[in-house]
């Protein structure tokens, strides 16, 4: 697909209050373009509920329902039920940060996924609570500085996209702000599928990650190229890597040095060689874990149980 074939209408209007180089606006623009504006957004507390501006105006050109942190997926389930009753085919999209997905919103997310609600849950993951001033979240990676982990976080992140795979929902994918065409196509594909769909977008946050504001897109690319963020897609249980991650998994492309990604961000600048080695270990383990999900390898594993 060419960029010129993308929807031209703007759904995130200029003059909003997002930071310079905000990844969330880029991602939301792309998502709403892919949905051609036929969507209702459900937004729990996050940056988006702030940058859309104060009453009586809104910087987002589709209906938005601002809801409490813990209940985004539940609210969306209700709105979808109402649309079904009215016979409307409008996509109900939850647009939540990692706080509203990984931590506070997790029970509603898990509940909606288990019930198989026909909604699209999108998490834009900047790995911190950036709206409230950069606190650690469940998505913050090992070693990262935040205002609440000022010597670097001591725990690895949890991975909700894997958790969604375990829920067995019909569509799970990850995307990065560095590859908007990929994101656009993933949203289009998710739109075709009925049932609970989950997309997680890596959103490098310039003030939170401590890197220059013009590097947002580059950082999104670098995260994927260095293997720290893995692009994959699972449709009806069929797992595959996509984009650059696919080339890496198939050995057609070498991973960039992890240090290039880590040390270009202020939040990782204090890392010692030992800590970098720890992150590397984690990344490799993650790749091995996901690679086992690709078709063929899984068959070989299950075959042992059903002789």
């Amino acid at each position, binding site marked *: 697909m060419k960029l010129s074939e993308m929807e031209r209408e703007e759904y995130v209007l200029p003059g909003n209050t997002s930071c310079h180089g905000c990844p969330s606006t880029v991602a939301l623009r792309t998502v709403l373009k892919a949905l051609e504006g036929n969507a209702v957004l459900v937004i729990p507390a996050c940056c988006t509920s702030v940058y*859309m501006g104060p009453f009586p105006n809104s910087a987002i050109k589709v209906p938005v329902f601002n809801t409490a942190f813990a209940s985004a997926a539940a609210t969306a389930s209700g709105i979808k039920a109402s649309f079904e009753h009215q016979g409307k085919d409008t996509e109900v999209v939850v647009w939540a940060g990692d706080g509203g997905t990984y931590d506070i919103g997790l029970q509603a997310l898990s509940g909606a996924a288990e019930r198989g609600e026909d909604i699209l849950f999108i998490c834009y993951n900047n790995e911190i609570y950036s709206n409230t001033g950069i606190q650690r979240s469940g998505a913050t990676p090992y070693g990262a500085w935040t205002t609440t982990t000022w010597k670097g976080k001591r725990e690895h992140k949890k991975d909700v996209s894997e958790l969604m795979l375990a829920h067995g929902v019909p569509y799970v994918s990850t995307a990065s702000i560095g590859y908007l065409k990929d994101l656009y196509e993933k949203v289009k594909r998710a739109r075709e599928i009925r049932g609970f769909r989950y997309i997680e977008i890596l959103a490098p946050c310039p003030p939170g990650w401590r890197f220059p504001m013009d590097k*947002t897109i580059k950082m999104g690319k670098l995260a994927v190229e260095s293997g720290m963020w893995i692009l994959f897609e699972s449709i009806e249980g069929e797992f595959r890597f996509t984009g650059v991650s696919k080339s890496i998994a198939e050995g057609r492309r070498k991973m960039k040095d992890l240090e290039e990604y880590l040390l270009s961000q202020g939040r990782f600048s204090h890392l010692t060689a030992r800590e970098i080695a720890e992150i590397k270990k984690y990344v490799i383990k993650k790749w091995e874990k996901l690679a086992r999900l690709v078709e063929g390898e899984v068959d070989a594993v299950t075959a042992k149980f059903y002789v």
Partner: protein
Amino acid sequence: MLISVRFHGRGGQGAVTASKLLAEAASLEGYYGQSMPFFGAERRGAPVVSFTRISDEPIYEMSQVYHPNIVVVLDPLILKAVDIFRGVKEGGTIVVNTTKAPDEFVFDQDYLNIVSVDATGVAIKNDLLVAGLPVVNTPMLGALLRADIPLKIEVLEGIVRKKFGKEGKRNVKAIKEAYELASIKLVHGSGKRSYPRKKKIKVEFPISTPAEGVAGKTKLWRDFRPEIDYEKCNDCLNCWIHCPESAIRLNEHVEIDYDYCKGCLVCTTVCPKKAIASEREVFVDV
């Protein structure tokens, strides 16, 4: 027809069971029945409330019963703890386990039917004791049939027999005895019942309308100004799709909207032709 019943009792007397049995009997008779307990910190001896609805149409109301036709009071002493007359409809029925005469009750409604029965006495006589406490729910159900309720005593007896198994015989006997013993009387109250007037509250949902520039002209945020060199530009649209501010417009060519561009310079880094350069912004007009 919708009959709503509220049961007052103490934990252990079987108010919740009575409420369920009543709903079951109603559905056996061909009505729709619904039963639910009020959930609180219930324990043995604490005041409990339970509700039953009976209707000849499907019941969509799922709330507690606030305006019952019938109130069943399993414990005479509960009168001191709870206002059993609260919300009861005019001409409704109170079925109360008491040794007092019906006239002795004071309430705010104009008139109510009072069914009084010494259910505790019936329970003791029939040996309906659990942990030493008389369980009065089945005798009270017998007395309840005196009220204006379209259930046959045989149906209720059948259900009780099924529910209690070995104990069923004694319970059925208690139902019959309480039914015979109960007396119904129309009693006038003070009529001072004040209906709380519903306040009219005007609710307006704040709905925002989409607009450009919710934060004003964001050009003032700009320290650096991107400039497109149209000689190098090949309209690849990379700057357009990657602009965080939607400040690059698509006209004949890509054009930067300098009213809203915040000067984040993402466009300069994504341009494959390096056709966008940046320079220090100097505002003349501001």
